[in-house]
């Protein structure tokens, strides 16, 4: 490809476009300013805009859905999009584009489609590499059915990853990755296969970016396994032999175990809070809203696309109160402009072209913010966030008794937070401090006790209505399950800690930390009271004091590692991490490189094995600047609660 590197999402989008144009590369489409191919003025009838049917399987659908909406697919000539597993009828005279994983089941379905001659021609695209053995099997099937003439093309696309934003991706089809990798009941073979899959996913990412990276990772464990496999794959891949221009990107492969606090911690930024508190999956957020009057809860669904939504892209990394404020002012701005225009035109004319969309988006954010705010207020999230941040940043390092007391008070307070919030705080407490295990046991017991009693008190209040749950059933079934799981997770982590498996936080907390503690506690509670007051009305105008306080965010572990590697600081991870270059056989000794001048990395890809989270993504973007582009990826993006669930499965 061209020497200029596009962002990952743009590259993937272009690849999808090319696939939808039936892989015709004879004519290069015009490239618009932002690097996205402009196919829209291609005349219909050519292969760029031919009518076609798209047939995908579920993983490939999740790849396409954040990239292209239905109407965009339509404008690319896709008249129907169907799941491969559903019943499909014959639509003669229309070519079909298959976009599927190379599995035996899918190949059988395709073969049977061809033998039934459902479509005029078949273009098959595999999301990753089709094994030779599978291809032979498929070939046999096709020859037997006598429908070889149906196949127009067959491609390996290497697109096996889901791009949520320009600089954010996850591998598709990797659920429960942390539990999978760290679980005890996994056979060696399954693990090997899993690592292979991850390596292929990363190969897709690197291939789509069109560059050969320098791979850095910690020695031992999953990252090294993946890195070595990936190194080999890239070296073997035919297209890697002809050279790429530009500086090599840096691929850092990290293990989740290095930093377990971040995915479990409460967060304060807009995007991370959406992911934490609402149902958020592949850029779609869902929540239920009680409209005024509260008759029926309404399920709302919104698609968030940071690339098309200026407000979201501007404020997703900002602390939540700032986002609220910005939303309020921008909405006001738009409304007043609209009013001005209305009054000029006499009221009944149509609003100006650009504005309706912007206003719609802002209103969408208003309702999302409101939903988040309701949750925040109901669960007292800032208190948890504040204490967790303090714990994680080592403020209580020398004062564990005080830390314990604070945690205990918050955990046993029945009016604050739900079960999961408390367990998360407990886990942070367990991971971030060096208190003895007995203390943690004590706190967790107290928490369980208080939860039971809280359930009791609630139960007594509702005694008349809720007569069936007598005696012990004080918590709801759901909460009890969560509590049990959470306690299991705590037990597992305590175990890990006693075995010294987790790097002690004392050295992880570096000098980067900017302490802004002290008076924060009362500031926070003042914010809370303010926010609660205004949550019912329109959104709060949070004070600047609060936002500045929440704005100071400590660099997370992964961020520091990546920064050290990028800036090649001596005596840090740069020295000890493995250095692999697919173009050079064997390992490279970093100590030797130190004498040479190394070009700075312009493109950095950070990949976390075992689940990533939005707060880590946001944190990493802090070290991105105009000369350095940081892309964050993970096996999957987990919300804190999901991660808690995975931890619970482990013990």
């Amino acid at each position, binding site marked *: 490809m061209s020497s200029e590197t596009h962002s990952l999402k743009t590259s993937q989008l272009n690849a999808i476009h090319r696939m939808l144009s039936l892989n015709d590369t004879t004519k290069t489409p015009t490239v618009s300013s932002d690097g996205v191919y402009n196919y829209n003025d291609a005349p*219909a009838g050519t292969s760029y805009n031919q009518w076609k049917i798209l047939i995908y399987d579920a993983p490939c659908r999740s790849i396409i859905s954040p990239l292209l909406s239905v109407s965009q697919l339509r404008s690319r000539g896709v008249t129907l999009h169907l799941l491969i597993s559903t019943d499909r*009828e014959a639509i003669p005279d229309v070519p079909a584009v298959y976009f599927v994983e190379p599995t035996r089941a899918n190949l059988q379905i395709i073969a049977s489609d061809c033998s039934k001659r459902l479509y005029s021609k078949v273009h098959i695209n595999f999301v990753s590499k089709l094994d030779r053995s599978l291809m032979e099997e498929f070939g046999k099937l096709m*020859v037997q059915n006598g429908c070889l003439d149906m196949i127009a093309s067959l491609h390996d696309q290497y697109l096996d990853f889901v791009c949520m934003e320009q600089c954010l991706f996850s591998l598709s089809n990797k659920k429960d990755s942390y539990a999978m990798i760290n679980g005890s009941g996994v056979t060696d073979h399954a693990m090997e296969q899993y690592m292979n899959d991850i390596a292929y996913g990363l190969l897709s990412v690197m291939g789509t970016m069109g560059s050969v990276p320098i791979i850095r990772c910690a020695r031992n464990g999953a990252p090294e396994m993946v890195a070595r496999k990936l190194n080999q794959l890239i070296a073997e891949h035919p297209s890697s032999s002809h050279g790429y221009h530009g500086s090599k990107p840096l691929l850092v492969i990290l293990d989740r175990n290095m930093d377990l606090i971040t995915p479990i911690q409460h967060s304060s930024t807009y995007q991370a809070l959406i992911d934490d508190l609402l149902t958020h999956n592949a850029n779609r957020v869902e929540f239920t809203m009680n409209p005024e009057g509260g008759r029926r809860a309404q399920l709302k669904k919104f698609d968030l696309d940071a690339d098309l939504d200026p407000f979201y892209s501007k404020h997703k990394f900002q602390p939540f109160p700032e986002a609220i404020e910005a939303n309020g002012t921008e909405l006001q701005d738009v409304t007043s402009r609209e009013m001005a225009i209305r009054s000029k035109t006499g009221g009944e004319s149509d609003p100006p072209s650009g504005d309706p969309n912007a206003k719609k988006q802002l209103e969408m954010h208003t309702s999302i913010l409101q939903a988040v705010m309701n949750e925040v207020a109901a669960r007292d999230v800032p208190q948890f966030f504040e204490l967790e941040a303090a714990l994680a940043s080592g403020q209580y390092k020398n004062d564990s008794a005080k830390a314990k007391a604070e945690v205990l008070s918050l955990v046993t307070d029945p009016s604050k937070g739900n079960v999961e919030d408390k367990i998360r705080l407990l886990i942070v407490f367990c991971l971030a401090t060096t208190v003895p295990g007995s203390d943690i046991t004590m706190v967790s017991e107290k928490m369980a006790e208080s939860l039971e009693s809280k359930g009791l008190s609630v139960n007594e209040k509702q005694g008349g209505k809720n007569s069936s749950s007598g005696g012990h059933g004080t918590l709801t079934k759901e909460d009890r399950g969560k509590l049990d799981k959470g306690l299991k997770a705590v037990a597992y982590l305590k175990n890990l800690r006693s075995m010294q498996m987790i790097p002690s936080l004392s050295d992880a907390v570096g000098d980067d930390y900017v302490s802004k503690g002290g008076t924060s506690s009362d500031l926070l509670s003042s914010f809370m009271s303010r926010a609660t007051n205004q949550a019912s009305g329109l959104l709060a105008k949070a004070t600047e004091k609060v936002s500045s306080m929440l704005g100071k965010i400590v660099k997370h572990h992964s961020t520091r590692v990546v920064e050290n590697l990028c800036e090649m600081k001596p005596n840090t991870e740069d020295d000890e991490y493995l250095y692999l270059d697919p173009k050079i056989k064997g390992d490279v000794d970093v100590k030797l490189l130190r004498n040479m001048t190394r070009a700075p990395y312009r493109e950095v890809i950070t990949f976390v094995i075992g689940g990533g989270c939005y707060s880590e993504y946001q944190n990493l973007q802090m070290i991105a600047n105009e000369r350095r582009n940081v892309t964050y990826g993970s096996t999957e993006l987990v919300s804190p609660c999901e991660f808690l669930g995975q931890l619970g499965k482990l013990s």
Partner: protein
Amino acid sequence: MVSQDRTAEFFSLCQSLPPPATPQNTQPKPPPPPPSSRYSYKAEAAEELRTFHKTASIISKEIHSTSQLLSELTSLIHSRSGSLFVDESQKVNNLVLRIKSNIESLNTKLDASNEMIQRNKIRLGRNSQAGQEATNLVGQLQEEFVNTTKGFKNVLQVRSDRMKEKTDRETNFHKTSKEEEGETISLLGNKPKVYQEYQDNGKLSSGLSSFGGGGFNNGGGLNLTEMASSGPRLDLTSAILQNQGGSSMNPGESTTQLPRPYGIRQTENNFGDNTGMRLRHSQSSVSNNDTLPTTSLPVYTPLDIQRMEEQSGQSQMMQLIPDQNYLRERADAMETVESNIVELGTIFNKLAVMVNEHSEMVQRVEDNVDAANDNLTLSLNTLTDTLDNLRSNKQLFFRMMAVLVVFVIFFITFFA
């Protein structure tokens, strides 16, 4: 990009494979269609859909060519700086006409295909994927079509705006010069304004506001009525003024309520001989411009005309002729624009409805499946409801039977 084309590899692999075991299968034939009773019926519909695809691609190509014409027109109109549109107006008109006819034919074609799909959908069944595919296709075509026509509409608006702007500028220019000229001229100077406003603004804005747009110069619409009512009055008084000035015209004639085309520059030159000038104008507008309201127009005899011509100087005649042409051209241009807009207005309205329906469709790929799921659960619920209904019916039936049997037994034991 790492995407690998493995078509060749696959085909060479297939060739190396042994031919299928069963000998009768060596010559691959498409499997015979399932012999169902409805087949021919469906096949017919499918066949029709096939031809439909061909028409669809033709339509799509036409849309594309139309949009190309449109971009040409747009560049032409936007590149035209403030200068007079003497040169390009012909070209622009031609383009507009071509685009308009294209749009009209496309509209009828789209209508026809839509109808055909509706017909076939009934035959194929409501949820047929082929039918859905065709509907989506037409929907997409309609959307493209509307986008194109929207562009056309915008271009036409820009064009009429430009015309209006130019007229205003001319009037302004005239106003500055008129102050030097004196009373009579100022009166006369207003007349052309009346005429031109009427021609340019009035018809256009009425045409424009007749289709939903409405955004174009509401004030202009107001102006029009004002002008239209005040115009003749003004004209009348000025004619009387002229009469008093001692012309040989007869009073009956002077009250013609005819809005006159009036060359602005000529008025400046000819204020010495106003009467003749004016008559000349009214007369020529009768003969040349049929579209003007000519109801109350007195009939001139050739003799009259001769007399008037003698009165007006020869030199003025020479000056008047290009002016006439210019005005006529202008009036024609405005009329075409106006009629285009009015004709297209109906199409726009119709399409706007269609596209609104179309664009409120699902946004994300998954939603399709979600909807299907919802439908599934809904149908399941309906089925269980029906089952419950049936069950209760059965119970009722049993109860009735029991009562009946008891009654029969009672009857037999006691009466038999």
